[in-house]
């Protein structure tokens, strides 16, 4: 240890505030350096003098009346009301950063999931509605038959036949009639020309 380094440690050494390892290295230097020893001595003397001054110089005292007045001013104590806020706000900074990243990741995931194609506007038909997008030329006969209720609800009206105005409605509609007495089932399949063909299984 050189003198420059030793002098930087002397103020702490004067009050015995150096860690043990540094203290022993400084002690080794002081043994062979009288100038640093003298410096340490002046620092110790100054510190002692200040402590003596603090003890000797007049100390302030509370006048009894003022002390009573302070004690009278005490209101009701807040009983652990700040516990929760202390718990929330005294977290380390890195915890806030991690939380922020997690929230951002969750928001990004939600955005990604919400951008999935809407089945109503998809070019792919949902299962069970094959008949709705199959053109009249490609439709095999007999066409796939939806259940009666769905067919009645979804395909009850004829589709647009104008060639320049493609309709959002399916090009083929089905109707199913079931006889309550005989169990006879009649499937009516309409193509885009609204021509019907009867299929009696």
């Amino acid at each position: 240890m050189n003198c420059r380094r030793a002098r930087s440690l002397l103020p702490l050494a004067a009050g015995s505030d150096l860690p043990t390892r540094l203290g022993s290295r400084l002690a080794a230097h002081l043994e062979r350096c009288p100038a640093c020893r003298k410096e340490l001595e002046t620092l110790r003397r100054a510190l002692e003098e200040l402590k003596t001054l603090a003890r000797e110089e007049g100390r302030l005292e509370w006048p009894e009346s003022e002390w009573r007045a302070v004690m009278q001013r005490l209101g009701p104590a807040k009983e652990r009301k700040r516990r929760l806020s202390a718990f929330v706000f005294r977290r380390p900074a890195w915890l806030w950063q991690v939380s922020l990243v997690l929230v951002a990741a969750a928001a990004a995931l939600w955005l990604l999931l919400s951008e999935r194609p809407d089945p109503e506007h998809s070019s792919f038909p949902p299962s069970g509605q094959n008949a709705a997008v199959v053109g009249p030329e490609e439709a095999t006969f007999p066409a796939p038959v939806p259940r009666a209720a769905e067919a009645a609800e979804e395909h009850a009206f004829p589709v647009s036949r104008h060639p320049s105005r493609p309709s959002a409605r399916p090009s083929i509609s089905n109707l199913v009639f079931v006889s309550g007495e005989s169990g006879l089932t009649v499937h009516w399949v309409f193509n885009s020309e609204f021509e019907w063909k009867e299929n009696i299984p």
Partner: protein
Amino acid sequence: MDEKENRLVELVLSGRREAFEPLVTPYRSSLLNLAFRLTGDAEEAKEASQEALLRAFRYLGTFNRRRSFRNWLMGILVNVSRTLAAERRKSARRRLDLDPENTASTDDPARGVGEKELRSRLMDSLRHLSPREKEVFLLRDLEERTILETAGILGCSPVSVRVHLSAARKKLRDRLLRTSGRRGRTE
């Protein structure tokens, strides 16, 4: 924290506010004197101590009983004193802006204190320290808290305490050497 203090804290929190007085009475004098050395003004010291006691009472529920009550109280006092000192500096600056004729140094902590206080060598030396150096020196060397306790009270690292303590001791030693040299010459 000792058992007696723990019981008193429990009593205050259960609604018996008269238990607060025996809890803080042991620190009555040291609190006022620490405030005086921090602020450099007797009236401000009283104000700071009163405010610290009121805050301690109000927020006793947040006190961690594994820590020392004395250190917690000192931490509050240091914060209050710091705030008061900042307000005083601000108002002094405002006064100076309003009255530029008044060229007296209003930043002087000894302003308004009695002659006896002005004569205090300790206070005179402390005036040459920065606020942080003063806090560290007062807590470590005069209140005899450890480095770790001082760091806990001030809410800073032990390394920071050591750095400021080192600077404070050096400045104070230089100041004392200078004043004693001056006195030697006049005698």
